[in-house]
């Protein structure tokens, strides 16, 4: 155990280099590596997180898992991720992030390999909860790497760049993996197991890249802190205040703020819709709307791609148009999220209309999530315990998302009609589902979220 901890522990600081030119050169080289590896490998890691979503329908069609079972397994990842986000956030502060992140990717890959061979619900659920936890190694590792190699006055830009990584991963999954599984001529028509094998291979590769190219903290390479190197005085001063504070006491204060609880519940409700569409949307589009696997996943990709713009637009509009007041922007983006849902689920059977609705939905959803899952909470929470507020809301959000996956699966399964053809010793089954009740659940969650967020109309940012 000790040797494992030692392996993952952050390296010791090396004697400081004195050659300024060499320091500059090293910083430039490693900073380029950090941002490239963080974006590329965090994005690639997403493929191992979302693989199940793409192969859900083939798994259900093959009769390997019922919707309820698939929902249960899917929910496990979200519970594992919620726990992982919390525990790994703490661990990553003490870790050599390249080893920590690489291990997370590698172990996540192994869980995907395992999933491809499992047809037993509890084994798949166990693999997927562990996958969720290992997936939780990525974000804190990248956050620590970005914090170590980019100083305060530039971190926003690089953090923004890194935030686009999830779109790379979602795009790769919803297009790339779908391409492998979808039937020809659109796809290669590979067996659903490839939907786990290829992501696993990608994640092993990403782990290797991380291990080779992501550096430990600057001090372990004999370099000064990035704030020192960039002469970012603010960052140095802030670090000093941070060290002196009694963090735990302040962190506990977060749970005594009623508005934080309301935001957590609102975020949790919005995560229900978010993960319902991301997890079941493609299955719904195939089952009810009759799209093929590739097209259905392409539609889901559209909403995630539009989300990149939604995040950026929310921040800009709420700052510039509403003078940093989040509630009016929440209402605007909430409506952009809610109204297209009616078109997606009850609108005309027209691909263009559906695509536009999904783009607007994705745009609105990302905006409102940027607020409920981050900005709005950061406005209200005491600034020095912003991390705790985010963690608190994160746990609620992913718990809601996980619960959603199981409830949705159960509701879909309850509507199942099986048509079984007996063929002597064997039989073949085709499944029919009704999504009417789950859709009410998904849209209802968004309505609840908007009402909760709206109840904070008069709340202003704390100083």
């Amino acid at each position: 155990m000790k040797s494992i901890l030692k392996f993952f522990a952050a390296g010791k600081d090396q004697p400081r280099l004195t050659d300024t030119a060499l320091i500059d050169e090293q910083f430039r080289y490693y900073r380029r590596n950090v941002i490239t590896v963080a974006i590329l490998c965090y994005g690639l890691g997403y493929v191992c997180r979302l693989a199940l979503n793409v192969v859900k329908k083939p798994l259900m069609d093959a009769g390997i898992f019922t919707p309820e079972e698939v929902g249960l397994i899917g929910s496990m990842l979200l519970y594992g991720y919620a726990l992982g986000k919390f525990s790994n956030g703490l661990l990553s502060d003490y870790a050599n992030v390249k080893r920590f992140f690489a291990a997370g990717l590698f172990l996540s890959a192994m869980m995907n390999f395992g999933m491809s061979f499992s047809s037993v619900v509890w084994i798949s659920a166990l693999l997927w909860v562990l996958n969720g936890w290992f997936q939780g190694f990525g974000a804190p590792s990248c956050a620590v790497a970005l914090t170590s190699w980019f100083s305060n006055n530039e971190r926003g830009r690089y953090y923004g760049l890194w935030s686009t990584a999830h779109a790379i991963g979602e795009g790769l999954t919803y297009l790339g993996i779908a391409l492998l599984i979808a039937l020809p001529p659109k796809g290669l028509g590979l067996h659903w197991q490839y939907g786990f094998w290829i992501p696993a291979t990608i994640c092993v590769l990403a782990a290797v890249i991380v291990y080779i190219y992501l550096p430990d903290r600057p001090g372990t390479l004999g370099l000064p802190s990035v704030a020192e190197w960039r002469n970012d005085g603010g960052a140095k001063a802030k670090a000093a205040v941070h060290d002196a504070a009694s963090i735990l006491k302040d962190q506990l204060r977060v749970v005594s703020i009623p508005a934080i609880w309301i935001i957590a519940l609102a975020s949790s409700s919005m995560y229900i819709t978010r993960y319902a569409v991301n997890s079941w949307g493609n299955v719904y589009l195939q089952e009810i709307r009759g799209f093929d696997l590739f097209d259905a996943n392409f539609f889901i990709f559209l909403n995630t791609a539009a989300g990149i713009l939604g995040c950026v637009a929310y921040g800009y509009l709420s700052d510039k148009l509403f003078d940093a007041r989040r509630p009016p922007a929440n209402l605007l983006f909430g409506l952009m999220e809610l109204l297209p849902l009616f078109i997606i689920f009850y609108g005309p059977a027209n691909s263009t209309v559906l695509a536009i609705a999904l783009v607007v939905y994705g745009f609105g959803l990302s905006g409102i999530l940027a607020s409920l899952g981050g900005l709005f909470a950061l406005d209200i929470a005491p600034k020095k315990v912003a991390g705790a507020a985010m963690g608190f809301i994160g746990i609620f959000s992913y718990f809601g998302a996980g619960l959603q996956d199981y409830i949705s699966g159960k509701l879909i399964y309850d509507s199942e009609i099986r048509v079984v053809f007996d063929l002597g010793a064997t039989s073949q089954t085709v499944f029919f589902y009704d999504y009417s009740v789950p859709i009410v659940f998904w849209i209802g969650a968004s309505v609840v979220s908007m009402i909760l967020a709206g109840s904070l109309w008069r709340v202003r940012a704390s100083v």
Partner: protein
Amino acid sequence: MFRRPAKNVASRCTVICTTLILLGACGKDDGINYCKNHDKVHADHADTIANLIINVSAAGDLEGSLSIPEAALGDSTAEEVESILSSAGNSFTLQTEHPCTVAVTTIATSAGGVNASYTASCGADNKLGKINASLFDSFDQLDEVVTSMTTAVTSKRFAISRQCDSPIFKLDRIN
């Protein structure tokens, strides 16, 4: 001593990723076969296989029709087939919370083959869980059945073939 070759990470990754994905994708090649590439052969034999149409309404009513072309009857005579179809249970049974009223509405033989139609009244609150299609048990000579089923919210068209392990959904060739 600190410097690693700065050849960029992205280009190396792209090469390795592409290679691995292609290797993975090439790992299994079943070639053209009857089940996997059924769309390529289905149009050629569509006229000679049985068709089953099932409509399930939101009110819990079910309408079904079965047509077996002459070419699919094998050695059986039309009379023998009619006799089997005259009992709905030889075509399908329903699994519901409460029993349904099932009736054979028509059975007719024409030059093209034998046609039968059925109705079942189950009631709106009587959940239909399973339709057991026993056509392949009733007709040994039947090799394939194309089924079109519509429920209140969706419809699916697929073929069940004795030669394949799973239902075939891709029946129409896309040019």
